[in-house]
Every structure is written in C-alpha cells, then in structure tokens.
C-alpha cells in the first residue's frame, strides 16, 4: 500500500466496518439503555419546554460511515423563564 494508491488497506476497512456494526450491536444489547436515556432527556427538557412525552421518538441511525442519535421531540409549549 503506497501513499499514492487510493485503495484502502483491507485491515482499515475491517476496522471501520467493525466500528459501525458494533455501535449497532451494542445499542441492541441493552434495550433498557434507550429507555433510560429517554427518561433523562425528558427530565432535562422539561426544565425548558413542555414536551409531548408520548410523541418522543429516539433512534440510532447508521449511514455509511457515521452514526447519529436522532430525536424527534414535539414541543407543546415553551416555558417562561422566571430567573436567569
């Protein structure tokens, strides 16, 4: 593998593919994890907004080389800030 060649060494491909597949595997491993994160997020969000707890959707999306936490959180109302 020389600097000028564009082919990726297959070991790097193996490592990248593993990273991606393990992000999914590991998140699948603990179904409780997304749930507990959801609860924590609601707690924080409720300081600032009134959110639709039932309508919240949280997912882990993998595309090509990146993995994203995608959250759809319907806001019912913003809260009036009374102090700084």
């Amino acid at each position, binding site marked *: *593998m020389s600097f000028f060649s564009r082919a990726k*060494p297959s070991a790097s491909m193996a490592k990248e593919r593993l990273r991606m597949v393990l992000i999914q595997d590991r998140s699948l491993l603990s179904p409780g994890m997304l749930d507990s994160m959801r609860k924590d997020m609601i707690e924080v969000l409720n300081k600032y907004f009134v959110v639709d707890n039932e309508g919240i959707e949280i997912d882990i999306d993998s595309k090509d080389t990146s993995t994203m936490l995608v959250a759809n959180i319907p806001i019912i109302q913003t809260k009036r800030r009374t102090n700084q």
Partner: protein
Amino acid sequence: MGRSIVVTSGKGGVGKTTLTANLGYGLSLEGKKVVLVDTDIGLRNLDVILGLENRVVYDVVNVAEGTCELQQALVKDKRLGSSLFLLPAAQTRRKEDISNDQLKQIVTALKGAFDYVILDCPAGIEHGFNNAVNSADEAVVVVTPEVSSVRDADRVIGLLESAGVNDISLVVNRIKPEMVSSGEMMSVEDVLDILAVRLLGVIPEDRQVIVSTNKGEPIILNEKSLATSAIKAIVNRLEGREVPIPTFGKRGFWARLSDAITGRRKQ
C-alpha cells in the same frame, strides 16, 4: 482454593480448545495441578487434542448424574507426571443434560483439589456457554483478527460482564505478522482498540499447531514452533509474572504516512 478460568470466544474455530489444552500443558510444566474440563457436551474434542481419546471412560455428565465419582472420570495425562487431568465432555448427550448448578458444584469440588480449573467453552452463546461461564471466576476470550470473530468476542464480553465475570482478558490468536505489515490484517492494537479489554497474549499463526494436533501432542513441547513462546508467555502472565508482549507485524513507512495524512486508523 484454585482458580477457575473459562476459555471462550462466541465464534467457533478460533482456537479455544487448542489454547485450553496448551495452557494446561504449560501450567502443569510449571508444576501446577491442572484440570481441563470439556464443557462442549455432544461435540467433545479436548480429548483428541490432548491425545487422550482412548482413555476416556466416564464423562462430566456421568459425574453430574452420579453414575460415577468425580475422581473416576478424571483422565490423567501420563506424559506430564500427575499434574494434568482431563474431565471429558459426554459425546452422545445434549448440552441440556447438565445443569448450571451441577457444573458449578463439579467446578467447586475441582477447585478444592487443583490450582487451575480451565473450562473449554462451546461455541455459541446458548445453554452450554451459560453453564461454562457461570461456573468460572475468570474468562479468557480468544479472538482472531477477523471481523466476525471480533464482533462475536464483543458480544461475549458483554455477556460475561452481565454474568458477573469481571476478570476478562484477551488472547489474539493466529495473527499473521506479514499481513499486518501490509495492511491486510487487523493488528493487535486494532483489535484492542475495539474490544478494550486487558491483553493476555498474542499467538502468531503457526502451521506446526496443525502438526501437533494431528498427533495429539502439545505444541508447547515443540521448541521450533512460533506459537510455543507465545503460549509460554501467556502461562507466565497467568502466574502473575510480567512478560512483555512482542509486536507482530509493523506497518510500513508509506502505509503509516498515508494513514497520518488521511487520518485513517486514528479515531
């Protein structure tokens, strides 16, 4: 009280049984009393790897069912004095024919009489795996530098942790240094980056292992073998001695420069 160690991997064919056998030889050469337990009920193989297949009379299921005493089922390896024993698996039974509690009881009894009780775990993550894992205090996870093996190892490490086995170490088996150097095989560092557990040892690919297993002889007695020093080093580390782990395969200048520029292999 001895130590109970399960040798496991998730994926089959990565070298669990061969490693179990050779750790047994290695530790007994160190003067330790060792018993190897084949927990792969229905697919027993540790007996043939050890060359003891003609001496098996009773098996672990017989012990569990009370057909024989524990001592009657132990097969002694006469080549190594009286320090290495095998408790064979049953060949014509199913994994479910021994319960978790039964195996635990057997392992506890063995720990009272031996320095090391090493359990050769079946492939997979079903009943046989659970039995073996739940009977051990420590785990050695065997992995080869391949995507499928590393993925399965990751899953197994998660399962070990949730089973309360927290002393987990890793053996990277069948590394081909020249392929690592040319960027065609994941390096030990790559595997460790992903799995993030303690490294117990690295064993290079070695054709002599096939020759030894053909004969039912320990590879560790073959001084010409590349694997021998690696296995002896693992034995030393199990015994608590610090032995440096050599690097197997160096990435060439151009490969490293290219990686540095593209930012590959960092992360």
